[in-house]
């Protein structure tokens, strides 16, 4: 029973336990905040990668995959897959509507010819389209210049269908950074230059490309004029900067991957069969709970069976290529390896950094408890002399560490939650000039503590003089800093390509951190206490 009495007294009759709770809380909060924000960023990068192309990609670049509709039907019938979508892709130049005058600028683009409906089922295409009506909440918070305030639902519909409803022509959707007229605003969000004049969906653009399949001889470029129907933001700059999306049929036609008649090479007027339409990629989305790797393995098996089946048909001139001939079936991570690689490296690096933060915090907590318990060595000797057992004494400090650890980690969790939740607000506040009241208050406090210093000096009390003059300096300094502070955005959205700093607390990590904080508090208190309980009572009593 003495454990309870002593633990309670040790906890309540000194300031040290409060300091320890504060230290544990700060350490825990530090770890939680850093990990939440950093892994939030990494997740954003990964998610955006996945949003772009689904889970598994079948790819055969130049030649293209024939009979893809049949293949897609079979893939979609798999339990492991949710949806599949064909696409053709290549490079081209896009003649932009700007600048004014005759000499229009061209941008280098990578175009994807997609089937919008199935593409939206496989990827996050629908969510990436930027020009859409604002909902009521967004309307309240959006800046006044935001063009989206004036949009009708038709813009989003046209974007999703890749079709301009006014002219009834196939449309194009551009990555947000393809048009150099789109400006990213400090508040987040985009605004076309010329106060909205260069809003791309109001213009036509011309796409020029070289077909992938030609019969030899001179290569004629293909071009097509598209009305811009929408723009998309994937969140990854490298993609938003070059990618555009057009309807699949148009892409196939431009690349000469559409269905054609197969003629006898010796006699171009004799049709010997049909050359089926082709696509260069098939994107597949995994069913819920199926890993990309599992889906890939399944698709590989299916593909091989499919090729075998076609090989037995004798009514066809064109056979689907076996996997050995340049056709690849890979998960999106494999496809994006060059892009994901650095991110993974970064994640590893962050893990090392996190573990350093962890180790430092753990060491800090251990040291604090070590110091507190060490100071109690004599008490331990006294307790031994009145007959307390070693286990009983160790229990006192076990409890002590436990209470502080639990309190500290709960306070830390609350702290971390509040900070992470409001990280963008805090960041915005740093980004603005300090309000007048803030530095006025600081100077006010400076004056007050200056007066307290003078008062203390009159009474010739050393500690108050030191403390109050430090307070004066600190408050004056703070005032000057606030007064001189000019908003600097640490996370400038015009430079970095995520709108906002991730603001969700990483819950599993928070739980691990809380457990860690408690474990280290308990160990920090328990180890020196066990050591002290083991020392000779006489020795312990000698401790001053």
């Amino acid at each position, binding site marked *: 029973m003495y454990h309870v009495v002593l633990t309670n007294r040790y906890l309540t009759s000194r300031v040290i336990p409060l300091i320890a709770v504060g230290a544990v809380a700060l350490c825990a909060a530090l770890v939680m905040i850093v990990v939440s924000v950093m892994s939030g960023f990494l997740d954003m990068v990964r998610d955006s990668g996945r949003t772009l192309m689904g889970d598994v990609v079948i790819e055969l670049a130049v030649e293209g995959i024939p009979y893809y509709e049949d293949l897609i039907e079979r893939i979609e019938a798999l339990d492991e897959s949710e949806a599949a979508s064909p696409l053709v892709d290549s490079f081209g130049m896009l003649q932009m509507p700007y600048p004014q005058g005759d000499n229009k600028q061209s941008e280098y683009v990578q175009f994807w010819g997609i089937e919008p409906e199935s593409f939206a089922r496989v990827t996050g295409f629908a969510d990436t389209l930027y020009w859409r009506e604002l909902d009521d909440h967004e309307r309240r918070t959006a800046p006044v210049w935001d063009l989206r305030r004036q949009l009708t639902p038709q813009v989003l519909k046209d974007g999703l269908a890749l079709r301009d409803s006014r002219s009834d022509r196939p449309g194009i959707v551009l990555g947000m950074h393809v048009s150099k007229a789109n400006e990213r605003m400090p508040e987040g969000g985009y605004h076309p230059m010329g106060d909205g004049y260069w809003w791309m969906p109001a213009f036509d653009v011309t796409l020029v490309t070289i077909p992938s399949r030609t019969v030899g001889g001179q290569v004629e470029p293909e071009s097509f004029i598209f009305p811009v129907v929408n723009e998309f933001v994937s969140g990854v700059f490298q993609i938003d900067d070059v990618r555009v999306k057009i309807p699949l049929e148009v892409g196939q036609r431009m690349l000469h991957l559409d269905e054609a008649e197969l003629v006898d090479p010796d006699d171009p007027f004799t049709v010997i069969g049909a050359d089926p339409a082709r696509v260069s990629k098939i994107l597949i989305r995994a069913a819920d709970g199926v890993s990309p790797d599992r889906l890939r393995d399944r698709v590989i098996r299916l593909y091989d069976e499919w090729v075998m089946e076609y090989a037995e048909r004798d009514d066809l001139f064109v056979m689907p290529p076996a996997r050995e001939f340049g056709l690849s079936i890979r998960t999106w991570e494999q496809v994006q390896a060059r892009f994901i690689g650095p991110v993974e490296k970064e994640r590893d690096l962050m893990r090392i950094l996190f573990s350093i933060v962890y180790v430092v915090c753990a060491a800090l907590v251990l040291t604090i408890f070590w110091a507190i318990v060490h100071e109690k060595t004599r008490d331990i000797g006294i307790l031994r*002399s009145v007959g307390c057992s070693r286990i009983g004494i160790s229990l006192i400090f076990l409890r002590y560490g436990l209470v502080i650890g639990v309190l500290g980690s709960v306070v830390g969790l609350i702290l971390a939650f509040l900070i992470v939740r409001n990280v963008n607000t805090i960041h915005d506040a740093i980004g603005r000039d300090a309000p007048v009241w803030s530095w006025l208050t600081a100077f006010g406090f400076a004056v007050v503590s200056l007066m307290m210093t003078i008062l203390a000096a009159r009474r010739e009390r050393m500690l108050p003089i030191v403390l109050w003059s430090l307070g004066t300096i600190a408050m004056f300094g703070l005032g000057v800093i606030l007064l001189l502070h000019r908003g600097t955005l640490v996370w400038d959205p015009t430079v970095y390509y995520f709108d906002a700093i991730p603001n969700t607390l990483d819950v599993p990590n928070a739980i691990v951190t809380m457990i860690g904080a408690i474990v280290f508090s308990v160990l920090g208190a328990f180890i020196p206490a066990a050591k002290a309980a083991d020392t000779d009572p006489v020795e312990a009593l000698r401790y001053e």
Partner: protein
Amino acid sequence: MSEPSRTTPTTAAPPTPPTGADFILRAHEVHKTYRMGRVDVPVLKGASMDVRQGEWIAVLGASGCGKSTLLHLLGDLDQSDPGRGEIFFEGEPINRRTRSQRNRYRNRTVGFVFQFYHLLPELNVLENTFIPALVGLTRFSYHAKRPEIHRRAEALLQSFGLGDRLKHRPQELSGGERQRVAIARALMNQPRVLLADEPTGNLDENTGGEILDLLAEQHRAGLTIVMVTHDRSIAGRADRIVELSRGRVITID
């Protein structure tokens, strides 16, 4: 009361087998050696001493001669060199017991009073006094015994003139008051023997006298006391004085 050994004036009694009955506490040829780095420093070199039930015995000796060491051995706060000498309580060797029996011995059978009081700074006077009574209690049995424990501690402190200081912290008390709290704590569990290590060593003569009066009162009530001191006049308050010199108990007064 008259033992043959009492009349032997100059050196300690030769080893006599423990007889039990008369002696409540007995040190028999105990050796204690401290190790200082690579050197062994023998402090007790075969000290023997008998404490009778109900007597007040003073152990006199120069500073550093090992008085505290001997007292710690008697109270089982420390152990003698293995195999070299033994401490008997009521005829039973105390160093051959289990850990929990030894904790119990320190808790119930003996009570310690130190020169530097050794109170727990975070506890108030009342709590410092009753802490030995809480040892071994579960939360449940504590609630059952709580009134009784509080009553006894309060009564002890009352009789020591500290009735109005129950909620004070040790730091708020004078040396004499602190030592009275320490004695109250030592008596809390009604021990058989009180072991006092220079209980007046830190106090002025008047205050020290008051402490000795208090001990005398307990002694009259039947308490066995072993008191260590280097002051001959203080030792004079005891029934009997033994002297420790060169690691042995040499005179038996």
